[in-house]
């Protein structure tokens, strides 16, 4: 059953922590490199670069290490994380830290010590024999512990354990102890050149051989002392015989090299792998993991690209590590060298970007609902660094387009809009705004629709929205509909219908909602405003004109119109009737349906009454003026 791997593992709490912390390290690294490249320090730049990369890689390793300390022993991620830690550390040693002539001993020994930690075993020995330490040397794990300690280069631990062996029983203990004590240590002798250290080592090893051949190993139960001595002499067959203790060919190899040739470098390592017997010893038990370790030792970077991805079932490791290698300029894949440029497609992405994209896509598929926006944003951070042909940005856009906007809350929609805007995806942001404003309109949340509309300044929808609001207002007379525009005055200048809505609101407030003391004054202002509105061509939508006239009708009695205004009103009515006749012959959709009052009769009456009042007022004014004149 070949299932496509589900990356839901990324939503697991431990993984979330690791992902978030790695993301921070990744972002910080790239941010620092960018700011560095902008300053003019040229000389120190290369040094800084590799230091920073090594730092970042170490931080990645520390993140996983910390996580292993936090999670419980039976956590299902434990094994995988330990394997990842092991591989990552080894890759750091071989691919980043090592140089063609540099010694690998200290780093590899440390790797052996931390990934095959004998401390628990040692502590167990001490705790089970805490009462009578004379019996300590009889513990069945005693000799294994000492041998492992010596094999791993933990000389102090070995000596400490050895001190519990009764000296009077086997006097050779003292000699062995002396040998261990005088063993030259590469880190404490770092002031010596390699040649000098080698000389010192050979001298010391001659003494070991002497002890092995001449000393009396009386009282040496199990032959433990002899084995120790043989290890110190770098006796190959002894190493091979301890196969069960080492458990893996690479541990055996490292251990052997640390005694046979402590100043070994990477080519020495390769030679011993090829010519040595260690791998053959484990021949029948080799598995994929061993193959990976072998490839790493052989400096084959391709292993990260292929096998490690399979091993961990995701691209977390490969994406980060290849990125580091790329930045330090050490990324040289065999596949690229062998095939040559003729075979390479022109627009194929560089390998490290491929892996970054893979990783991001895996993160995105793990966040299966829009509610895991933070995980998506993590993925976006990585995608942004894939700048070849803008692949990264395009993928971000594709993903954001698929977020179901109709199912999320307003605040989440605001976040998505903001992210799109932040990445410069203005078209996408605009379309998000359009979906949201339509959604609000359908749900009759006119206020929300207005906010979205004002954000994206969509003129045509703004007009539709204004019409809808006015229609509802004329039907329900609900003031809050008008009030929706009170805070938007300066922003809705892109849509003339919205401007009209706003002006109408001003008129309405002045005309009908003023306090008694200000009434007349405000009424005059209101009429002035409305008449001005009537005069602006096409400002008042045709369908509302009738209703506006009827509102005027109610105000005429208040004695606040002046002569000019009355004439202007007449003119507008004339224009309106012209238009009406025109539309009766050639209907234009959208303008034909007028908002009407309840029944035709009352409408007819209203028109009649309006004309009566208008003419009455004009006549009155006329007469008055004549008299005054």
């Amino acid at each position, binding site marked *: 059953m070949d299932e496509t791997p589900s990356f839901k593992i990324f939503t697991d*709490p*431990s993984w*979330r*922590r690791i992902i*978030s*912390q790695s*993301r*921070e390290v990744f*972002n910080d690294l790239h941010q620092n490199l960018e700011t560095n490249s902008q300053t003019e320090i040229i000389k120190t730049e290369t040094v800084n670069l590799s230091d920073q990369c090594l730092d970042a890689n170490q931080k990645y390793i520390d993140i996983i290490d910390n996580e292993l300390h936090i999670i419980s022993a039976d956590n299902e991620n434990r094994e995988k994380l330990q394997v990842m830690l092991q591989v990552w550390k080894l890759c750091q040693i071989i691919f980043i830290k090592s140089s063609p002539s540099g010694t690998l001993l200290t780093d590899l020994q440390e790797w052996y010590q931390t990934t095959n930690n004998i401390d628990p075993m040692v502590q167990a020995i001490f705790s089970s024999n805490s009462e009578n330490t004379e019996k300590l040397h009889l513990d069945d794990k005693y000799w294994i512990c000492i041998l492992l300690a010596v094999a791993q280069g933990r000389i102090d631990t070995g000596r400490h354990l050895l001190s519990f062996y009764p000296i009077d029983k086997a006097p050779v203990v003292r000699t062995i102890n002396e040998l261990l004590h005088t063993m030259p240590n590469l880190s404490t002798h770092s002031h010596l050149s390699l040649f000098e250290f080698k000389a010192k080592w050979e001298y010391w090893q001659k003494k070991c051989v002497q002890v092995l051949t001449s000393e009396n190993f009386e009282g040496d139960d199990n032959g433990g002392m002899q084995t120790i001595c043989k290890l110190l002499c770098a006796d190959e067959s002894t190493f091979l015989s301890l196969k069960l203790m080492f458990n893996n060919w690479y541990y055996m190899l490292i251990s052997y090299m640390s005694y046979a040739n402590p100043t070994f470098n990477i080519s020495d390592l390769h030679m011993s792998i090829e010519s040595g017997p260690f791998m053959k010893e484990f021949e029948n038990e080799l598995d994929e993991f061993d193959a990976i370790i072998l490839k790493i030792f052989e400096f084959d970077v391709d292993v990260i690209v292929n096998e490690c991805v399979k091993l961990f079932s995701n691209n977390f490791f490969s994406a980060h590590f290849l990125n580091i290698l790329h930045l330090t300029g050490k990324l040289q894949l065999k596949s690229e060298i062998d095939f040559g440029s003729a075979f390479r497609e022109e627009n194929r992405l560089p390998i490290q970007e491929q892996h970054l994209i893979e990783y991001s896509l895996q993160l995105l598929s793990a966040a299966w*609902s829009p*509610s*895991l*926006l*933070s995980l998506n*944003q*993590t993925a976006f951070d990585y995608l942004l660094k894939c700048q070849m042909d803008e692949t990264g940005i395009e993928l971000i856009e594709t993903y954001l387009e698929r977020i179901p906007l109709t199912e999320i*809350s*307003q*605040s989440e929609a*605001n976040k998505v809009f*903001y992210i799109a805007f932040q990445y410069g995806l203005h078209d996408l942001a605009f379309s998000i705004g359009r979906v949201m404003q339509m959604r609000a309109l359908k749900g*009759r*949340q*006119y*206020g*929300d629709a*207005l*906010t979205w509309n*004002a954000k994206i300044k969509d003129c045509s929808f703004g007009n539709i929205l204004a019409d809808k609001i006015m229609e509802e207002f004329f039907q329900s007379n609900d*003031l*809050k*509909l008008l*009030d*929706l525009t*009170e*805070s*938007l*005055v*300066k*922003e809705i200048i892109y849509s003339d219908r919205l401007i009209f809505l706003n002006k109408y609101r001003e008129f309405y407030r002045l005309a009908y909602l003023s306090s008694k003391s200000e009434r007349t004054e405000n009424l005059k202002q209101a009429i002035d405003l409305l008449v001005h509105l009537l005069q602006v061509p096409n400002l008042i939508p045709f369908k509302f004109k009738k209703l506006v006239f009827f509102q005027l009708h109610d105000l005429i009695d208040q004695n606040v119109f002046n002569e000019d205004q009355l004439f202007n009103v007449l003119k507008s009515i004339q224009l309106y009737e012209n238009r009406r006749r025109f539309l009766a012959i050639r209907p234009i959709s959208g303008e034909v349906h007028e908002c009407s009052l309840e029944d035709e009769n009352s409408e007819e009456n209203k028109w009649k009454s309006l004309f009566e009042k208008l003419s009455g007022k004009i006549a009155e004014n006329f007469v008055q003026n004549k008299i005054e004149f």
Partner: protein
Amino acid sequence: MFDNLNKTEKIYLNFNASKVRWLSESKITPSDYFCLGSAENFKSVSIWKQNSTLDDFEPVILSEYQNLDGYVTEIKSKSLEEFFLSTSNGSVYHFKCYHDEQRLIELNKWSKANDVVNGFDFNNDGEELCFVTENGTINFIRLRSQINNLNDLDYNELCSLNSVLYLKHFEIAVSDSLGRIKIWDSRSRENKKSCLSLFMEGESSSITCMANDPNKKHIIACGNLNGIIAIYDVRSNKRPFTLTHNHSEPITEIGFHPFSGDSLFSSSFNGGLWSWNSSNRGELKSGWEDRTVNFKNYLDSNRYTLNSFDLNNDKILAVNNNLCLYKLKYQNLF
């Protein structure tokens, strides 16, 4: 002035928290307990305790409740052991925690179907709780009555309401997505009109958060999606005093200093935790307009959206969108 005495400490959680709140009777009473409400598709609230005697910040989780019906949109604590929270699925919960026994119990739950509760507040006596929703409704809960008493204001705003604050015993301020703050009288349920409507001309961006001055309840600070903070005095209709950054990142949370209304904190999408300080040169009664304002970013190493923060005595907790929980400590004002 505020000097950062101790280093900023941070730990990594394993979920994203949308709200962090200290559990205490008031912002002045020091407390070691705080709660975290989850974001996104996690639906949990958890209670934590920090050991103030330790040098390092190592809070311990005491209890957790994982059956909320949505992610957490607001938490407000009533006392050391009681708090309310609202969710994205239209519910308000009342919880009680027993710290010693490490238990967290849901005492009560009120729900409104198909809605998102954006914010709530309760008045000083703890008698009434008011919550506002995305569908534009303002709802009241009688906390002390025997029956689950939930009723709403007979008024449905046509835009989403984002937060609410009690100014006086019966007066609430409600902010909405059109950038307005409306003052309502909560006594009458048939209110058709608010007492007052405040807004900034030219700035109609949705108001995301509000806070009131600890000493003068009529001073409200609010932050909006354009990154502008406005300080209103609700007694007057004057144009508010505005504070802006030199960028327009939405403001996620805002809060006054626990002891004095001269200092304000705000958090935004680009991760900064800003402190705005109006220096007092010994003058008694002057508002923000009359003084110079200094500002400082206390979390400039953080580049991920700061979801929420809370102040208690001289400590600040903040959570960002990359699973981090920060703790900062400040010298007291006095």
